[in-house]
């Protein structure tokens, strides 16, 4: 009962803060947007006024040279030139002192004639230096400048700016403000979890558990003190009550023991009854001391989330601009095309993570999670710092290798930490901490990285990533040292070549790995990490935009993945989720057949996000479903180790395949080719698993 009540209290507390933060962020976004509009609109008008000033000076020069104002020649051509240089200018006209149009270019907006002849407009002729505010006419903002010669007023120059241009600029700002809102919210939730959530949640849980222990007759002393509690006096009272009973039992046991030590004839007559009573009490209640530390400190598991989030955020920060950064550092490498070189740092990073994973696991077993994470974090921080200072692409490759090494170590150690500290019955839900940190960093990192790269530059953003990695070290220091005793955990080992070979030749294993896991990762890294950031820049967009697009992928994953994970309950469903997910992801790439604009890229990435969300949980669960015999022979560590190795090799192959495709067919077609290939792999997966089901059902 009170577990639900206490959970409710925690949710209410977290909800109250989240709601307040959301409202504050929404208000901040709204008011900031208004500030931007107010500050930037005059700047846009000044650009138009500057253009107008050029036209006006040309006109005045012509008039000074003796050309009558009404008979100016080549004005329309001059207007054309202005339109070429400033495409937002959608209308240009020169009127005389009565508002009659002498020259004009493009279509006049509704109400233009009335405006030109209006007294208020003509009044401007009396103020040669006046810069009136823009006036909205139809779908244009009209800026009017007087043309006044030293001896007399000549007329007025009217420049119309397309409303859509101003709206697009405001919308662009609004999009970024929304991105900032979402990112800040995710950040805040992580911070809230880190500052208060872990302790408060743990305190409430401990309170509930203490009640439950007393009610169930579990009077054991906790394995270790749980530290400062949020409800200190009540907890002390409850624990003192439990300790009192535990001590009374211990004293009784001691008394019985003492009684048994004396010669039989001196023993108290009630000793045997007391002994029987002691046994009976021991059967109905639990006394003594807790043995499993996982039962004692529920905060241990949650402690890994903050350092993991900060560390992964450092890496994700670079996601949206890394290919552009590589492009900046390109130097000619004999025999390798620049497109391939652009993909090398991503591929190398992924390759190191893939190949290093089994070795990092062994290392983690020897050194413990904390030390492995600390070393990994430090190595990655050096890598980020070096990347910020890289002189050319070769330098960058070396520094990114260090980042890959560090990332792999932290990733594997954090995964092992969760496995070691999760109660066996809550392993799946405990993994939500791990996945949640990665997903939240995936949402925040690329978008913030894009904004920062556009504003402070790519090198300082890399430096900031290094700083974040260093900050993660500070939080990692709070993790417990050493690993809990490996009770039922088999010793880790690296898969042998023959084991890898056996699995590669295994049809069931390769259906899941070769037709699903690898294509999914090739699509993810090839399309999202390589093609999107580069393609977005080729269509004249910004790194912030590529950050927004990649954030969309993370946001879709955060929303859809938990829903689809709940659907993966049967093998049949898992097949449909994996196959369907691949087809949907593939359609994302193929979508570029329909259009090449930013909107299509957004839609493509959303489809990839949905597709990956559909398949991601079911995919790894299917390995166990498909490879029961192999797991029985080799152990799940080896089977899953080889699965992860191949999956991550897919990560490494993605950028290389995409780069090769760009070389031959260009960016847009590369999206389509990768998408179609993955959709085909998904269809092949469905066919293969249908056949397999049919075979299983066929009468023998």
């Amino acid at each position, binding site marked *: 009962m009170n577990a639900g009540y206490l959970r409710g209290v925690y949710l209410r507390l977290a909800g109250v803060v989240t709601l307040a933060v959301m409202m504050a962020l929404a208000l901040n976004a709204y008011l900031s947007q208004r500030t931007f509009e107010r500050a930037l609109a005059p700047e846009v008008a000044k650009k138009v006024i500057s253009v107008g000033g050029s036209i006006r000076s040309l006109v005045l020069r012509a008039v000074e040279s003796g050309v009558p104002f009404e008979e100016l020649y080549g004005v329309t051509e001059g207007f054309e030139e202005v339109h070429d240089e400033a495409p937002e200018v959608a209308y240009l006209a020169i009127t005389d002192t009565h508002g009659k149009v002498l020259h004009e270019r493009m279509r006049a907006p509704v109400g233009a004639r009335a405006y030109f002849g209006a007294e208020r407009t003509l009044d401007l002729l009396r103020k040669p230096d006046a810069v009136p505010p823009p006036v909205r006419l139809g779908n244009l903002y009209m800026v009017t400048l007087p043309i006044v010669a030293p001896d007399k007023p000549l007329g007025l120059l009217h420049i119309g700016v397309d409303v859509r241009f101003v709206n697009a600029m405001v919308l662009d700002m609004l999009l970024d403000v929304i991105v900032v809102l979402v990112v800040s919210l995710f950040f805040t939730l992580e911070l809230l979890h880190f500052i208060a959530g872990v302790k408060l949640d743990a305190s409430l849980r401990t309170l509930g558990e203490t009640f439950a222990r007393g009610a169930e007759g579990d009077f054991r002393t906790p394995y270790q003190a749980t530290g400062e509690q949020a409800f200190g006096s009540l907890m002390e009272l409850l624990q003192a009550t439990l300790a009192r009973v535990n001590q009374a039992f211990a004293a009784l046991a001691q008394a019985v023991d003492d009684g048994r030590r004396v010669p039989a004839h001196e023993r108290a007559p009630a000793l045997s009854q007391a002994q029987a009573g002691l046994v009976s009490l021991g059967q109905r209640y639990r006394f003594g001391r807790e043995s499993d530390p996982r039962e004692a400190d529920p905060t241990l598991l949650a402690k890994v989330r903050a350092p993991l989030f900060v560390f992964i955020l450092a890496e994700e920060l670079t996601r949206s601009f890394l290919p552009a950064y590589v492009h900046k550092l390109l130097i000619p490498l004999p025999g390798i095309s620049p497109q391939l070189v652009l993909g090398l740092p991503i591929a190398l990073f992924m390759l190191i993570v893939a190949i290093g994973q089994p070795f990092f696991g062994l290392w983690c077993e020897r050194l413990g999670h904390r030390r492995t994470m600390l070393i990994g974090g430090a190595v990655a921080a050096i890598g980020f710092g070096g990347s910020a200072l890289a002189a050319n692409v070769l330098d960058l490759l070396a520094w990114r290798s260090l980042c890959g090494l560090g990332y792999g170590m932290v990733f594997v150690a954090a995964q092992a930490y969760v496995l070691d500290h999760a109660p066996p019955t809550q392993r799946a839900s405990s993994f939500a901490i791990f996945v949640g940190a990665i997903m939240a960093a995936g949402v925040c990192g690329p978008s913030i990285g894009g*904004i920062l790269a556009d504003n402070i530059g790519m090198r300082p953003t890399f430096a900031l990533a290094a700083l974040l990695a260093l900050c993660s070290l500070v939080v990692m220091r709070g993790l417990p040292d050493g690993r809990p005793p490996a009770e039922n955990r088999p010793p880790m080992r690296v898969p042998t070549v023959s084991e890898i070979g056996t699995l590669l030749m295994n049809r069931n294993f390769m259906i899941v790995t070769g037709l699903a896991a690898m294509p999914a990762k090739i699509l993810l890294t090839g399309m999202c990490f390589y093609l999107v950031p580069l393609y977005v820049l080729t269509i004249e967009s910004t790194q912030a935009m590529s950050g927004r697009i990649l954030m969309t992928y993370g946001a879709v994953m955060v929303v859809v993945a938990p829903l689809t994970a709940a659907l993966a309950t049967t093998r049949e469903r898992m097949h449909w989720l994996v196959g369907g997910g691949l087809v949907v992801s593939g359609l994302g790439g193929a979508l570029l057949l329909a259009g090449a604009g930013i909107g299509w890229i957004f839609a493509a990435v959303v489809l990839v996000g949905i597709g990956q969300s559909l398949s991601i949980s079911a995919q790894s669960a299917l390995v166990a479903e498909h490879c029961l015999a192999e797991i029985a022979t080799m152990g799940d560590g080896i089977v899953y180790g080889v699965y992860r190795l191949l999956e991550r090799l897919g990560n490494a192959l993605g950028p290389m395949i995409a780069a090769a495709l760009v070389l031959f067919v260009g960016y847009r077609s590369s999206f389509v080719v990768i998408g179609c290939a993955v959709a085909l792999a998904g269809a092949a997966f469905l066919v293969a698993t249908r056949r397999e089901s049919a075979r299983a059902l066929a009468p023998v």
Partner: protein
Amino acid sequence: MVCGFAVGMAGLLNYFKYRAAADRILTDRLVVTGRLVENSIQSSLALGLQFAEIGTLPGMLDRERATDDLILGIDIFDTEGRMLYSTDRLRATRPVPAAWTAAAQLAGDADWRAEEGHEGAAGISLKNNFDLKIGYLALRYSMDRVREAHNAVATELTALALGIFACAATLSSLALLWVMHRLGRNLQAVEQGLGQGEAARLSARALRGPFSPALRRFIETTRRAEAEIGELRAGLGNGSSS
């Protein structure tokens, strides 16, 4: 702290975004003037004039400078960094700042920006009618004026963020106090109930509260266990057992 972090970070990112947008508009505004000059240069070159000997160019540069009060001066230099024309006669004899040539060369055909002390420059590459690069054009502007505009927006955003933070922090603190107050009352009732030591003697408030069933079971179980232990202990001490 959480509210402060959220609003502070959002404010900082928003300011970055504003600065990027304002700088982009500023560059566009200056570059459009530069392009008009470039068109004029191309017309002169088409008439057979040499790039370094366009007699009408200084006058045109002066006129274009006067079209926008932000422009401090317009300079034109060749691909080797030699100053050819400038609205500021003194600058014509000085070398082109190294930051300009570096930024211009790095940008290739794109627009570029560079800063040197209190002055900034937005520039474009100049090409002849055969699309060959013949030099660069830089439009100088006052960095102090730009910073002033940025600072004004930064101040406004900071004031906004501070106000919102104060409201949000107050609101969330009050809401938290309200939730905690209810929890505190329930916990206090439990503490008092525990102090009674007997489930049967629990106060009405403790009995009504959400902890009532758990508290009852807790007290009953501990009492029962204590009673059994006490009984065995007493039996052992007395030499008899019931």
